[in-house]
């Protein structure tokens, strides 16, 4: 659930979602759920190449179709995220992780 919480902190930020079919969609993150399904508003994409998205305003993307989510570096506290992931991994494995 960590990354669900993490993405919740990014609501209203502009992100780019790259799908597994190579389409890249930029838009404002409107909401996210536990499957990492994403809703974007004011979307922009290469309409010349993909007229499928012509006239589209907002989009619901199924989490399973997402390959990458590109974020602006200044919106992410990488140290905090790394620490939190480590802590969650530790909690779920019930063991100490090497080096800690």
């Amino acid at each position, binding site marked *: 659930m960590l990354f669900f919480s993490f993405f919740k902190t990014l609501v209203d930020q502009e992100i780019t979602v790259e799908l597994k079919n190579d389409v890249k969609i930029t838009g404002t993150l409107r909401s996210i759920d536990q499957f990492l399904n994403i809703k974007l508003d004011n979307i922009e994409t290469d309409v010349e190449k993909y007229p499928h998205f012509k006239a589209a305003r907002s*989009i619901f993307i199924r989490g399973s179709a997402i390959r990458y989510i590109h974020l602006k570096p200044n919106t992410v506290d990488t140290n905090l995220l790394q620490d939190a992931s480590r802590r969650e991994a530790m909690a779920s494995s019930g063991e100490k992780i090497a080096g800690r």
Partner: protein
Amino acid sequence: MSSLKPYLQKNVKVITVDGRLFLGMLEGFDNNTNIVISSAKERVFFKDRPTEDMEMGLCIVRGNEVVAICDYDEEEEAVTDYTNIHAEKLKDTKNSLI
């Protein structure tokens, strides 16, 4: 929770995992993204011939086939003549490393 509720009874475009595009009115959905669309049609783009729309009627799309659902500007859609817009087929979302 990012639910599909705001899209209900609206015209939407649906992209499926095999790269196809469906248009229709969203009648219902569930937690697995299974969806029902009415007056559905499949729009097929070609590189070298006019775009084709195929009427499908009422459709149920299984959730795991869905990639994206978008709503669109009806006015812009109405004034757009798709017959001479050409495009390559969208890639599927399977075997993404090949």
